[in-house]
């Protein structure tokens, strides 16, 4: 448990040193992980502590962080933050820290069963996955396997009376296989309930992708056409483009292409929202990183921009309220909680009939996507060419386009899947993508 009295002292010290306002964010995490190089396992057991102190002195803001909650270290961070703030520039827009508010839902993603899991269980799970791959008898090489469990506690306190804490847990399994020139990768994540992890689903998916890739042929052509994206495959692309485009900070500062587009129709028929209150979802919590309650925020309805993601500062800049989307690294930023794409009516099979390429696996270079313009140029790791109702594996292909130009031709399918970037999406059929391979 995080000791509140030390954090309270830190806040008082900040005021004594001349800060107008102060906030402490503290987190403690425990992680047990079994990972491998090939079939050789390695075990890691980590406990990390971090504290982040944010102060405002006459609308000048600074942050100091430390990896300890010892009083001496924390008070040192307070002094560092106050002295840095004094030399910063005044920000006339600074609205002050948020005040206290009650949470809007009651689901706590904490499973005592995960928090108390012994490393031996993860070792057995990893060995079991390797054994299951062997028992498929298809000459599949295990490139790497991973099983991990983590738990943590976060606490936010500020001089306006916010004093909230919550706990959370999660589990991850991952498998990467190789055969000849083919590779396949699959994973699953869960907040709670060991039974929720799809061990066989992960093994089967990685094996299928690998075996198909091993017999894949070169596409040998370039065309513009419809590409069907598996939910897991497209989630990082949506994360890179939409999560950034609706980020209130990037909107306020003019980086987002959606700045000034509130009420305009720019995203085809897509309906999109952020929801930090979905029980069981990866991005669900009671509060954001400033202690503001999580909620549901409509971002786009039938392609029309309806709202943006905000923390307290960006909300004030746009004359609205925080949407409970404050995030925390070296600075206080904005990020989605669970980004949800509303499903459509078409089944996977219907969309597949309309597609020329099906993109499974992952998108190489997806982290390079240019959210400022919406341009993407990536490589699909495990693509399939659809011909005569059959999917035929092909070698990796490039996929390129501009998300906004393509959005009128995006058809969401049925069945939303929650994926690891806290993006929940159905499969998406996207027409007009340039494919080359």
């Amino acid at each position, binding site marked *: 448990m995080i000791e509140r009295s030390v954090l309270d002292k830190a806040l008082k010290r900040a005021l004594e040193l001349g800060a107008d306002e102060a906030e402490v964010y503290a987190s403690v995490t425990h992680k047990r992980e079994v990972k491998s*190089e*090939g079939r*050789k396992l*390695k*075990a*890691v*057991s*980590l*406990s*990390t*502590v971090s504290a982040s102190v944010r102060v405002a002195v006459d609308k*000048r*803001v*600074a*942050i*100091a*962080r*430390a*990896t*300890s909650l010892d009083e001496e*270290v924390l008070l*040192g*961070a307070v002094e*560092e933050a106050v002295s*840095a*703030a004094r*030399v*910063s*520039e005044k*920000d006339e*827009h600074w609205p002050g820290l948020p005040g206290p508010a009650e949470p809007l839902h009651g689901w706590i993603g904490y499973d005592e069963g995960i928090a108390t899991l012994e490393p*031996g269980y*993860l*070792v057995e799970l990893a060995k079991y996955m390797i054994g299951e791959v062997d028992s498929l008898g298809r000459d599949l*090489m295990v490139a790497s396997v991973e099983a991990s469990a983590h738990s943590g506690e976060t606490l936010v306190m500020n001089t306006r009376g916010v004093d909230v804490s919550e706990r959370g847990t999660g589990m991850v399994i991952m498998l990467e296989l*190789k055969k000849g*020139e083919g*590779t396949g*990768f699959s994973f699953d994540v869960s907040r709670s309930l060991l039974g929720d992890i799809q061990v066989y689903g992960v093994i089967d998916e990685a094996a299928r992708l690998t075996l198909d890739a091993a017999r894949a042929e070169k596409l040998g052509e370039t065309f513009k056409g419809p590409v069907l994206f598996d939910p897991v495959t497209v989630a990082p692309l949506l994360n890179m483009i939409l999560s950034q485009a609706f980020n209130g900070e990037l909107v306020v*500062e*003019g980086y987002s292409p959606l700045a000034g587009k509130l009420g305009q129709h720019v995203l085809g028929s897509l309906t999109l929202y952020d929801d930090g209150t979905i029980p069981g979802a990866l991005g669900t919590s009671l509060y954001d990183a400033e202690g503001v309650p999580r909620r549901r925020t409509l971002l786009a309805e039938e392609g029309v921009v309806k709202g943006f993601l905000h923390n307290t500062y960006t909300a004030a800049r746009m004359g609205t309220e925080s949407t409970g989307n404050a995030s925390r690294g*070296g*600075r206080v930023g904005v990020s989605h909680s669970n980004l949800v794409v509303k499903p459509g009516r078409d089944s996977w099979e219907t969309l597949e009939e309309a597609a020329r390429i099906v993109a499974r696996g992952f998108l*190489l*270079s997806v982290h*390079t996507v*240019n959210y*400022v*313009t919406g*341009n*993407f*140029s*990536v*490589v699909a*790791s495990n693509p399939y060419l659809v011909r005569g109702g059959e999917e035929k594996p092909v070698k*990796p292909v*490039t996929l*390129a386009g501009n998300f906004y130009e393509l959005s009128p031709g995006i058809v969401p399918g049925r069945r939303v899947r929650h994926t690891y970037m806290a993006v929940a999406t159905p499969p998406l059929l996207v027409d007009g993508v*340039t494919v*080359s391979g």
Partner: protein
Amino acid sequence: MYEDTAARLLERAAALGASFAEVRFEDAVSENIAVTNGRVSSLSTTRRRGAGVRVLYNGSIGFSATSDLSLGGLEAALMEAYHAARALGGGDKRIADAEPAGRLRLEGVRRHPSGVGWEEKLDAAMRAYRRAVELGGQVVTTRYGAYYAVEEVYSTGGFASSFEKLVIGLQASVVLRENGKTGNGYESVGGSGGFEMLAGGFSPEAVAERAYERARLHLEASPPPAGEMAVITRPDLTGVFAHESFGHLTEADHVYTGASPLHGRLGEEIASEHVTIVDAGWDERGGIRLLADDEGVATRRTVLVERGVLRSYLHSRETAAEMGMETTGNGRAQDYAHDPIVRMRNTFFEAGDWGEEEIVEETRRGLILDMPAGGQVQLDGTFTFNAMIGYLVENGERVKPVRDVVLAGNILEMLRYVDAVAGNVEIRTSPFGGCGKGGQHAYVGLGGPTLRASKLLVGGRQ
């Protein structure tokens, strides 16, 4: 500084029956300032202090870490690592012998960032901002960043090393919007020097000017054609090519398991004779200066490919033991809370004897590209790297600006297509970017000269 504590901890590990134990102390500071559209959007400092403990017990490796540096805190971490190793059951892991780097300091640092006030650091970011706006930048973010640390590594057999780390730098990003078109450009500079480095070509003004020029070109550009064609990479981009297309698959953790397509190919000709690729702890021409790796081993200059022939893999003490080789000083960890894994340092193509203009003039149809946006590689040898700007080249002339394109190939064939290499080697680093692997970030250097690959797959749109 932690010698006595470490000695007691290692004794305790031996008493538990560990055949090898290691404790690595890190005391690090990261500084970050960002100025967005004239306001200070970030001013933060992070002090990170802790230790990581690695144990080899009964042929299995366990790792744990703590920020409690009392003997009691360290012993608790040791027990966690020991229990983790025991949970694995018996194994056949070993740790290769290595010489400690000893006590090393970064020489020639005049104004270490720890001794420079916030005012001056903020002023550097503000100067870059003002210059970018003066030129016409409409949306501008400029950054100052620094990371510095002192690390100590102690392990079984009296192994002791202590060394400094430092990387400092500036970045500018500029967005231009005109007539419904958007262009954005960035520039990052950095190195393992003091504040005095941020002058000349690394001055705030120079950084802002290059970011603006790139944004201007990006604005005017359109998507390139798609398909296979000749690609000329400028030095910045060549570095990403070296890192992604090749470097990762020489990391021996992928090699000893047989997963890398470079497994079992030492001594084989895998690239054209124009290709020499090096991974070094430091180089006079730039990049990051890494005196030792995070296992406390001095960094060697490792020639990976020499005139087309695969000469070496990159090793940590763990992978060296797996392959019966020596460590190359590539065992690196993100911070004290992560275990060392095989990572690159400064990876670059060596110089050839062409001139950049000569290469362009000798190209009938292709692209010349710059401003890297990152890349990736997977174990089948498929690599990607992205460029944000460049030109379509026809009959030896730059005819039309192009932008936002992925380049892809397969490692076992693409390096054979490198047919012209210039002499203009540049090696770059910065505290803003880096490389990600296995959930760990690492500061790296990238570089090389302008070079041409006669055939790469281009993810264009026409």
